[in-house]
């Protein structure tokens, strides 16, 4: 899995949990909270969908790593690779 693909994984999840958000211009280096209306319930869902769809565990202490698409890719890509994806 490349970092680009990893960004897309997160975007796909956001598209499903927040279908009322426009995701066409999400800037990868800007905090998701600052450009989309996502609250703590939505972030919990991103974490749980990562576990459900991809078997990736994000412990609560690491939630901040999902702040932006770029930071998510940095944090998640090694986890995908470790799973052989």
């Amino acid at each position, binding site marked *: 899995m490349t970092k680009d693909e990893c960004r897309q994984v997160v975007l796909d999840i956001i598209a*499903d*949990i927040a*279908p*009322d958000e426009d995701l066409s211009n999400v800037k990868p280096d800007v905090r998701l909270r600052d450009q989309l209306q996502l609250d703590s319930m*939505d972030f*919990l869902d991103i974490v*749980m969908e990562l576990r459900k769809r991809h078997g990736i565990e994000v412990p609560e202490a690491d939630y901040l790593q999902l702040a932006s698409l770029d930071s998510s890719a940095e944090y998640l890509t090694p986890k995908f690779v470790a799973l052989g994806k």
Partner: protein
Amino acid sequence: MNSASHYDVAIIGAGMSGLAAGIRLAHFGRKVCVFERHNAPGGLNSFYSLAGRRYDVGLHAMTNFVRPGVKGTPLGKLLRQLRIDRDEFALCEQRQSRVAFGPHGETALCFSNDFALLEGEVAQKFPAQIDGFRRLVAAVRAYDDVSLDAPAESARAVVRRHITEPLLEDMLFCPVMYYGSATEHDMEFGQFVIMFKALYLEGFARPFDGVRVIIRVLLEKFRAAGGERRMKCGVRRIAARDGRAIALTLDDGSEVTADHVLSSIGAPETESLISTQSKIQNPKLEISVGALSFVETITVLDCQPAALGWGSDTIIFFNDSPRFHYARSEEQVDTRSGVICIPNNFDYGPGRVLPEGIFRCTCLASYERWAHLPDATYRADKLRWYAAIQRSAQRYLPPIPAAPGGPPGTFTRATLATDMFTPRTITKFTGHLGGAIYGSPVKNRQGRTVLANLYLCGTDQGFLGIVGAMLSGISMANYHILQKG
């Protein structure tokens, strides 16, 4: 352990909160089953058929309505959390509602899904109060109403810091209390905020086919996510050991086990199911049964209410007395105040009208004075109070015009069918003690009980209205089960 009868989560009650919790849990892979004693889902917001007609019970309107694109509100959170497309609810907006006070509604405040209408009405009818009203609205907007650990404060006390005219205070409280307060005379400010936003800052809407549309969407999501549901099979006992729920005995006598139990049936009702060898001593968790119950009459008309001159109001909250008394009724029914709902008066789109006229009235009622009557007296009292309620409510609507060349118009001539529920009906079908629709006056935001793996959701957790009920189920499923991994 028999895996066929073991669940990750057992949910008691297939109302709005139980189903919403079930959807969340099933979606994230939990093995979950909802146990419902009644044959119909929906709980306090259900539906039934009588003599070939379909009736809604409970729901006048779905509160918390916001238009597409408005974000960060309870409706949006609910749709996201349950993966529901807002078109599935097919919500149609109210026309206009009214708070009418005085023996004939001499002082009225109209409101709609545009908050500017209410603000303008307050400015016009209570010019000296408008600055205070705006400060109150700012305080409501700033309040964190989804916090699970906010301190309790009297809503009357907070409102009086901003509004000094008792009539306006009562008029603002009347709809807020009728649509959700389990407390007499006053309510907790957090609860007031939830309802103020739900009614005035957001608004009313309804699916054309009523509450069954919403319940059907929930059932379908739950089924698709893999949830199990057992109807006509309530939970009659929760066996406990070492501070944990260890097994549930069902109405049919069989037993199931679950890692977690989520109960939507109310705090005292849940407590009464727990059986332990040693009685748990915890005076702080002593739970009281709610004092507030209601009657509701439904009248089916052979015409659209607009034909009687009743086409403009969706919901009317009325009170004829100098002060508004929201308290346990002394008589069987307190007809001094009430709520009128005319489901025809939602905007269903051009040419789309409900097939018959419907006129619903809700008043405060005494559970004790209805609960133990012999059947013949019960039926006679229903007829008597039905008539008294109609007389009281019709003071707040325009008089019915005479047909051309005919005798003066009357409501009775247009009546095709009537039905009425009482506090006794509520307890019979929902199991809520004391007919208390809004449950215990003591709310338990974190949903904890005397047992570590038994949690409350729904009415007694304290998020109000049907959107609140669903959010309650979602929040408790997230907080106690999903977040724990």
